[in-house]
């Protein structure tokens, strides 16, 4: 079991390895061994505001003397990445909890890794593990620009098993072709920004249940103009009401205006109160509750946030 009491570690190295990405090497000040960890594990860095931020360990698990994390400066950050970028230098001490692993690498014959931006961090030790187990693997790695992508050089040694795909050179990651063919012997591990994870989840819809593993630290967030934001028609079957859902309203709001009684709580797809049975239509899921398999099955949906791809949606309401 992992330790949850914070410990103080020494920042023994600090390198800028890509635009806005710094790598820290952490050691015990007394040169003691650090706790064991497995690929996919993260640690919590206490950021001084009595909050903590999670960073994946991206070094070598066999190196019990040092941990490595890579941190992207996020201008919108509440202070986590700012704390690391501006507040820590070689010789600083920092409070750390963990490691914990919620994204463990399960045994499989083959692996497909998908990383976006700083999401490469948990994938690095996974690749090393796959390599040492002799399991064939591939990595599809996207980012804005080549210069913003961490560890590109380090990945060079794996040759053409790694596809480096900066967006300004190649456009969006070509998930369709790498995920086109579902395989029963392959596990897919993805980490990156929310839109990428959502795209991977969609493309894995026809893969065997349990194939896809994603690392997601917070509730899903959505861009203002998501796919499926168009107008569609909704029929509330039991109530015998049909109405139009415009882009700026949720199905929930339309139901409410039509005088249909639907319970809700969070209004953002995290609590599950408004789960509704879909009779007909293709939902675009935007909740954080249903598993990718359940979303792909499309039997139910959270009508506070989710929408519809087909022109018509029929709900059991």
């Amino acid at each position: 079991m992992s330790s949850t009491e914070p410990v103080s570690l020494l920042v023994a190295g600090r390198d800028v390895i890509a635009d806005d990405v710094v790598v820290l090497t952490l050691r015990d000040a007394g040169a003691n061994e650090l706790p064991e960890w497995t690929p996919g594990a993260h640690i919590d860095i206490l950021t001084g505001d009595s909050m903590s931020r999670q960073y994946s360990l991206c070094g070598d698990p066999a190196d019990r003397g040092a941990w490595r994390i890579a941190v992207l400066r996020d201008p919108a950050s509440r202070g986590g990445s700012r704390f690391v970028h501006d507040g820590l230098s070689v010789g600083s001490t920092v409070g750390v909890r963990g490691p914990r692993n919620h994204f463990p690498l399960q045994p499989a014959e083959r692996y497909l890794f998908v990383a976006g931006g700083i999401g490469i961090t948990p994938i690095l030790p996974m690749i090393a593990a796959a390599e040492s187990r002799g399991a064939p693997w591939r990595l599809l790695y996207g980012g804005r620009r080549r210069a913003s992508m961490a560890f590109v050089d380090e990945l060079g040694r794996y040759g053409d098993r790694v596809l480096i795909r900066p967006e300004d050179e190649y456009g969006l990651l070509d998930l369709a072709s790498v995920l086109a063919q579902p395989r029963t012997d392959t596990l897919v591990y993805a980490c990156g920004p929310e839109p990428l994870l959502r795209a991977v989840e969609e493309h894995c819809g026809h893969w065997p249940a349990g194939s896809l593993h994603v690392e997601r630290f917070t509730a899903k967030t959505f861009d203002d103009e998501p796919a499926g934001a168009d107008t569609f028609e909704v029929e509330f079957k039991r109530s015998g009401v049909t109405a139009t859902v415009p882009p700026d309203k949720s199905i929930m709001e339309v139901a409410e205006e039509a005088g249909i009684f639907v319970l809700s709580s969070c209004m953002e797809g995290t609590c599950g109160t408004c789960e509704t049975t879909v009779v007909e239509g293709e939902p675009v899921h935007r909740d954080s509750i249903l598993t990718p398999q359940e979303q792909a099955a499309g039997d139910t949906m959270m009508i506070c946030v989710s929408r519809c791809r087909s022109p018509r949606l029929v709900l059991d309401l």
Partner: protein
Amino acid sequence: MRFEDVLSLDPAALRCPFTGYADAREKGVYFSPEANAYVVSRYADVSQVLRDSRTYSSSITTGAPKPPPDSEMAKYIPFLLLSDDPDHARRRSIVNRAFVPAKLAAWEPLVRSLCTQIVDGLSGSEVVEFIDAFAVPLPITVITHVLGVPPADAGRFRSWSDQLAASIGAHNVDPGEVLRIAKEFAAYLGPLLDEARNREQNDILAIIAAAEAAGELPRHDAARFVMELLIAGNITTTHHLSSTLLMLARNPELADRYRGDPDTIPKLVEESLRLEAPIQGFFRLATADGEVGGVKIPAGSRVMVLYGSANRDGATFDDPDTLRPERANVTTHLAFGRGIHACLGAPLARMESRIALETLLSRTTSIELAEPADNVEYLPSFVNRGLRALPLRVTWVRS
């Protein structure tokens, strides 16, 4: 009346804090030295703060200061309620699916039989102290079943739970005493967690014990998780049931209407929650500079969000102080909060309340106050809105 009179726990203000809220809504967002917090009282503003959990941290939701991270107390504070993302998302995902309406539907027969049992036991009595007789035992018994802890120990949970809950929104709380109770509770839960690891059923104790076995939760987190789930819904549901019965007892026509049309009871439940939110307000801590309702809130400020006031905001609810279960937006009140911390137990509370009312109304022909209406007294808390006692004169249906 000013909102600050409510904070002073003046009995008249506690009976009817709503003019104080109206005054706060009139002012908009403002800093109240008495609350040592920015007071947020309009619906749109409360909703904005609740949904912006990045800026407004839940670490001080109950109003108590954060214990230092390495203190003993830090190990016993509520596990979900006071956590922020990403911890919160991960913690909540461990139990979230067990509390959605579809899963809870399986408990409906049990809730119905518990309600029936209680009513069977009461139907000889003409005067019933509703809180002790019904509103307290129902939620606590239900939650022991849902969690998978021994129902026979409900009495012990009740006393722990009452003592911990009473410390919220009250003054003169002794932190040492709170810690002592929390520790006693945690020690009791240890063996239950051990036992649940090997259990076949998938009750919530078993789900938490499994997460513990998988290394996701150390023992003290598993214990405070169970403790939170056992406690969170008790006094809130007790208060909701008693407020609703007070409403019915004051208005016999209303009771008759729902006797005749029990299918619409869920709307009455929602409207009662809106008007008499069992949790009137909670706190947030601003982690960055922000702006709410045109007022700047500097990082580090305490923010008090008044669900009970938002629910009576005329900008969102027409004729806001009147019970109108037929209003279209009857479910959009904030009695269960909103956003990532929206009440985990809301579907359970809603079900309990619906079945309790169905049972009580179908088994009675009249429910009246046994004491003059002016005598009702509320508990001394600006967070929990709850009656001290509710003696009812009941005419039971002859069986």
